[in-house]
C-alpha cells in the first residue's frame, strides 16, 4: 500500500517513545514474486486481488518502471484508455482493502450524544475539551482518524444514526468536515471548528462547539 504521511509541526517538534519489537515478533509480509520466466513477465498485470507480483531488481527479470501512465508491460501508454484502466485499478485496490488499511481510535461513542471527529494534533487538543465537557455532564465520544483516506464512511454513517451532531476541529477552513458531513448525509449536523494555524486550537473553542451541538 502506498502511504502518504500527513506530517505537521507537532510531529516535527515532539518526542515520544517508540518501542520497536524484536525481529522475531515483527511479521514481515513480502510482496508476491513472479512465478513465470522473465520473458513472460508483465510487471503490471495484476492477480485477482489487483496486486501484480513484483520481481526484485537484480533478479534477471529486466523489467521497466515509469512514472508515466503505463500498460501491463510497464511501458508508457499515454492514452485515455490506459489512464482509465490504471487509475481504476489503483483506486479499486485501495478501496477493496479499506477495512485493512483504515485505522481509527474510538472512545465513548456507544452512548454519546455528540462525537468529536478529528485527526493529528487537533485530536489531542480535542481531548482536553472532551474531558471538560464530560465533567459538565455531556456525553461526548471521540473518533480519531488515524487514516483519512480511505475515509471510514461506513463507521461515520453508523454513528450518524445515533448521535445529535459531529464536531470537527481541524487546522484549516474545513476539509475533513466536508467528508464527515457527506457521510452524515443530512441525518445530523456537522459543526466545523476551523483554526487557521500559527498555533493549535484553544480547547475552549472546541468545548463551545460541543455545547452548541447538544443544545
Amino acid at each position, binding site marked *: 500500500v502506498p502511504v502518504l504521511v500527513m506530517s505537521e509541526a507537532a510531529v516535527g517538534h515532539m518526542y515520544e517513545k517508540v518501542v520497536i519489537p524484536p525481529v522475531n515478533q515483527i511479521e514481515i509480509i513480502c510482496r508476491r514474486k513472479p512465478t513465470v520466466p522473465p520473458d513472460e513477465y508483465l510487471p503490471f498485470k495484476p492477480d485477482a486481488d489487483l496486486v501484480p507480483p513484483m520481481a526484485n531488481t*537484480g*533478479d534477471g527479470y*529486466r523489467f521497466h518502471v515509469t512514472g508515466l501512465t503505463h500498460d501491463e508491460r510497464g511501458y508508457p501508454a499515454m492514452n485515455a484508455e490506459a489512464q482509465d484502466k490504471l487509475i481504476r485499478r489503483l483506486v479499486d485496490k485501495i478501496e477493496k482493502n479499506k477495512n485493512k488499511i483504515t485505522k481509527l481510535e474510538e472512545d465513548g461513542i456507544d452512548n454519546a450524544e455528540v462525537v468529536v471527529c478529528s485527526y493529528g494534533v487537533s485530536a489531542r487538543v480535542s481531548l482536553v475539551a472532551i474531558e471538560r465537557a464530560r465533567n459538565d455532564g455531556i456525553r461526548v465520544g471521540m473518533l480519531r482518524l488515524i487514516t483519512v483516506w480511505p475515509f471510514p464512511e461506513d463507521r461515520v454513517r453508523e454513528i450518524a444514526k445515533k448521535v445529535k451532531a459531529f464536531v470537527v476541529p481541524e487546522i484549516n477552513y474545513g476539509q475533513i468536515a466536508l467528508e464527515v458531513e457527506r457521510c452524515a448525509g443530512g441525518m445530523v449536523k456537522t459543526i466545523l471548528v476551523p483554526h487557521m494555524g500559527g498555533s493549535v486550537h484553544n480547547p475552549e473553542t472546541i468545548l463551545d462547539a460541543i455545547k452548541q451541538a447538544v443544545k
Partner: protein
Amino acid sequence: MKTSTIETDKHPLDAYLRVDRLPHIWCPGCGLGLIVNCFIRGLLGTGLDLDKVALVSGIGCTGRAAGYIKLDSFHTTHGRAVAFGIGLKLANPELKVVVFSGDGDLAAIGGNHLIHAGRRNIDMTVICVNNFTYGMTGGQLGPTTPSNARTTTSRLGNIEKPFNIPNLAAASGAVYVARWTAAQIHQMENAFREALVKRGFSFVEVISPCPTYYGRMNNQPTGLEQMRYYRRKRVVKNGADPSEVGIGLDGPIITGKFVDIELPYLPAQGGSDGN
C-alpha cells in the same frame, strides 16, 4: 550462385533493446540513438552481469533512454534519478546502478542530488547527455545553455552563465569525470566502460545534438551540422583542469578524461569503516 543478404530490419544490439518499443520518440538528428549504442557497447565491454545492472533515468528526452534498454530500468520523477539510484544501491549494494539522464534533469531540478551523491562518493555511474536545452518541452533555456545562445525563451541570447558540469561533478567529489561529444564515439564508449567499472561516483558528460531546438536556433539546423560543429570545435585535453572546461558559444569544446582518482566510497564494503 551464392548470395548474401543483409537483414536491414535487425540491429546487432537488438538483444539489449526493448525492440517492441521501437521506433523511439527521438527526433531525426538527435544524438541519443548513438549514445545509447555506445553505452550498450561500453557496458558489454565491462563483462558486468547485466542482470545486476539497474538503469535509472529522470524526465526529458534522455529520460526515455531507460525505457529502451533491456535492463532493470526506472523512468523516475523529474530530477530524482540520482536519489532513486542511491536508494537502489543502498537496498542492494550488489547492483551496479547507472543514472542516464539529461542536463536539465541532472543539473537543474536534480542538481542537489547530483552534488551530494558526488560528495558522498556513492558507488554509481552518472551519464549526463547535455544538449544545452530542454528539448522535450520546447527548447527552453536551461542550466547548461551557453551565454548568448538563443533558445525559445532567450530569443535575444542567454544573459545567464551556464554550469560547467564536469567541474561541478569534480568539485563535488566525483572520482571519475570525463566529457566527450557525440562525434567521438570510440572515446565515449571507452569512457562509459571505464566509468562503469570505477568504484565510487563516476561521471561522464556527453555533448549531444538537438537540431530541433538548440541547433535550429544557433545556426546548426541539422544533426549533421551539429556533429560537424563538434568535430571542428572539439579539443582533446585529457587531464585538463575541470574548472577550465566551461563551454562558450562558438568556443572550443574541451573533451577528455579530467578526473580519475581513488577514494573511499559508499556504501562501504565489509563494514562501516572503509572499503
